[in-house]
């Protein structure tokens, strides 16, 4: 008896040990078509560098359909590396926690912390998480150089057209800001992880070649154009497969603009799967112009269009003359593309240089007056996150599941319900009834 008890205890202990081991030493097979559930190679590389605890706190409303997905994504991270611990909280349940981690409870988001350092990301997606972890691992925060000296709005300006809100947002997202006066010193210092160029109104002069040189050497830039300025930034972005077409977008679709304001398109058509526009709320872009992207960029260059206005919109090339009227001779029919993201890999002097440029046809949306609207702030942060990540930390290639539409009409839904919830259970009952009847007859 005693011996049997011991044997039983030993068997159970062996099972527990096996369970523990199987959790530590395990492999997985991803059966999805695009391996969409496997972490990308970049993510695995980043996780391989984590050797201290990283706490991930995701804030998602309980009803949010992406909550379960977020949890399983986080579980995959943890399985890959046990230093990752995570929680998924409802921000309305835990406003204190959200406030402590500086997450807007109405927006949600994710905070990643390690040794007192906190990074934030807007969505619980692989690109955001990996980028966040990469930022934690990077010992210094990325430095953003803010171009100035040619009439650009200032990051110190707290008034409506200023950029102080954006500046604050970037700092909370782990960026260090360094204003540059390119008029006084037309050079972009090597310490700039990214350059932000917002609507210069005076000709750039020597600064233009300084920026071009910076980009050619593997620089990263966010270029915000604006119809209000006569300075043509096309030469800067053309090398990277993008063209700024001057004019003014007039939006005719009531559902895609601010009320009764054809000059203020509300863009919700994010055409690409670029991480810059992933999971974005509609973006308000008052007075904006077009940014065209090359459909056939050169070798090593990929360009993604980011967002476009509606079919009922058009680009007025001479708004002063034609007003809000469409002039078929010169104007361009919608949809109008208003942004692009370019990624160029070049082999320069024996090592790889990676240049990234995001160009948008508007700058007002980044100002204090409008940065809080819709997805504006998030668009800017996502653009800069994507721009400033170093090559080994980039998760552009996260495996995304393909959409698999189901053509369900009302009638087909009814049919499905009829078969699965009607016929099949009925067959079970029928079988049961038959067996019962046969048994009774014996």
């Amino acid at each position: 008896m005693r011996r049997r008890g011991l044997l039983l205890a030993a068997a159970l202990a062996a099972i527990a040990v096996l369970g523990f081991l199987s959790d530590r030493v395990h492999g997985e097979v991803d059966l999805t078509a695009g391996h969409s559930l496997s972490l990308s190679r970049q993510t695995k590389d980043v996780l391989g560098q984590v050797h201290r605890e990283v706490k991930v706190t995701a804030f998602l409303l309980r009803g949010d359909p992406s909550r379960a997905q977020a949890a399983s994504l986080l579980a995959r991270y943890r399985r890959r590396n046990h230093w990752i611990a995570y929680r998924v909280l409802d921000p309305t349940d835990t406003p204190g926690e959200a406030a402590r981690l500086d997450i807007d409870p109405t927006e949600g988001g994710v905070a990643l912390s390690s040794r007192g350092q906190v990074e934030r990301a807007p969505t619980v997606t692989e690109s955001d998480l990996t980028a966040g972890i990469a930022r934690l691992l990077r010992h210094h925060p990325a430095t953003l150089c803010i171009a100035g000296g040619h009439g650009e709005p200032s990051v110190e300006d707290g008034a409506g057209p200023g950029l102080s809100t954006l500046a604050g947002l970037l700092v909370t997202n782990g960026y260090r800001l360094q204003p540059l006066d390119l008029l006084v010193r037309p050079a972009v210092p090597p310490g700039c992880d990214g350059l932000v160029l917002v609507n210069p109104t005076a000709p750039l002069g020597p600064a233009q070649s300084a920026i071009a040189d910076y980009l050619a050497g593997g620089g990263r830039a966010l270029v915000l154009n604006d119809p209000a300025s006569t300075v043509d930034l096309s030469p800067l972005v053309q090398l990277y497969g993008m063209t700024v077409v001057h004019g003014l977008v007039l939006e005719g679709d009531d559902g895609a603009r601010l009320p009764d304001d054809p000059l203020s398109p509300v863009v919700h058509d994010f055409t690409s799967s670029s991480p810059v526009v992933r999971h974005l709320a509609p973006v308000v872009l008052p007075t904006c112009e077009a940014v065209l992207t090359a459909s056939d960029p050169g070798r090593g260059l990929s360009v993604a269009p980011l967002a476009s206005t509606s079919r009922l919109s058009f680009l007025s090339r001479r708004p002063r003359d034609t007003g809000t009227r469409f002039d078929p001779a010169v104007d361009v029919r919608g949809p109008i593309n208003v942004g692009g993201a370019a990624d160029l890999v070049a082999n320069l002097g024996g090592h790889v240089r990676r240049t990234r440029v995001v160009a948008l046809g508007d700058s007002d949306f980044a100002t204090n007056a409008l940065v809080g609207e819709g997805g504006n702030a998030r668009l800017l942060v996502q653009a800069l996150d994507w721009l400033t990540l170093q090559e080994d930390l980039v998760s552009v290639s996260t495996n995304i599941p393909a959409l698999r539409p189901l053509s369900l009409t009302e009638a087909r839904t009814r049919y499905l319900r009829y078969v699965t919830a009607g016929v099949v259970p009925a067959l079970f009952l029928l079988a049961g009834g038959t067996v019962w009847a046969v048994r009774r007859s014996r």
Partner: protein
Amino acid sequence: MTRAVVGKELRVLWASPVPYVVGALLQLVLGLLYVDQLAARRQALFQPAVPIAGFLLLALTPLVCMRAVAEEARSGTLELLLAVPVAGRPLVVGKWLAAWITVLVVLAPVVLFVLLLEWFGNPDLGPVLSGLVGLALLAGALAALGVLASSLTSTQPVAAMTAFFVSLLLWFAHVRAEALSVGGVMDRLSISERLRGFAGGVVDTSDVAFFVLLAAAALTLAAAAVDGRRLR
């Protein structure tokens, strides 16, 4: 020996109304909830069927297993076997296999969902396969828990309720007061978390091992409980 037990158990089980009623209930609820999910998502996904079916199995597998040992102990047939003497292990394993097979048969019409998805859309068959594998493993583990509960009592309803309660605890093991999940031991014990990977299309060896070991642990205990009925 085990084969004979499986055959006898299957004949006894399928002569009772239990599998038919369980099958009808499972398919009815699953059909309604799953088609709702499809109508809402309009994507050819099998994924939403997995947690629904999993939870239904949680509730229904105990009904299939409850009679396994409890009823034999109550009616006295077990005494006859113990006097032979038949060891606990083949008895318990046979009963578990029979319950597992029964649950799988009852679950099998979900293949119809896949056919319908193929008809109206173009589903990714990888996650379908892994989802089915996950459900089958879950059914095996739940059946083992059910047989264990049944071996601890001579009252079928008590066995069913015990099994359901324990499975429920395991299903929600990862749920803390406010959080959905934390890195800890408890969420490694959560069967719903384990099922999630399968539903999405990933077969992880640790998840497979979890269900297999859960079943093994439950069956080891059940065999000990049956042997313990001898020499009391």
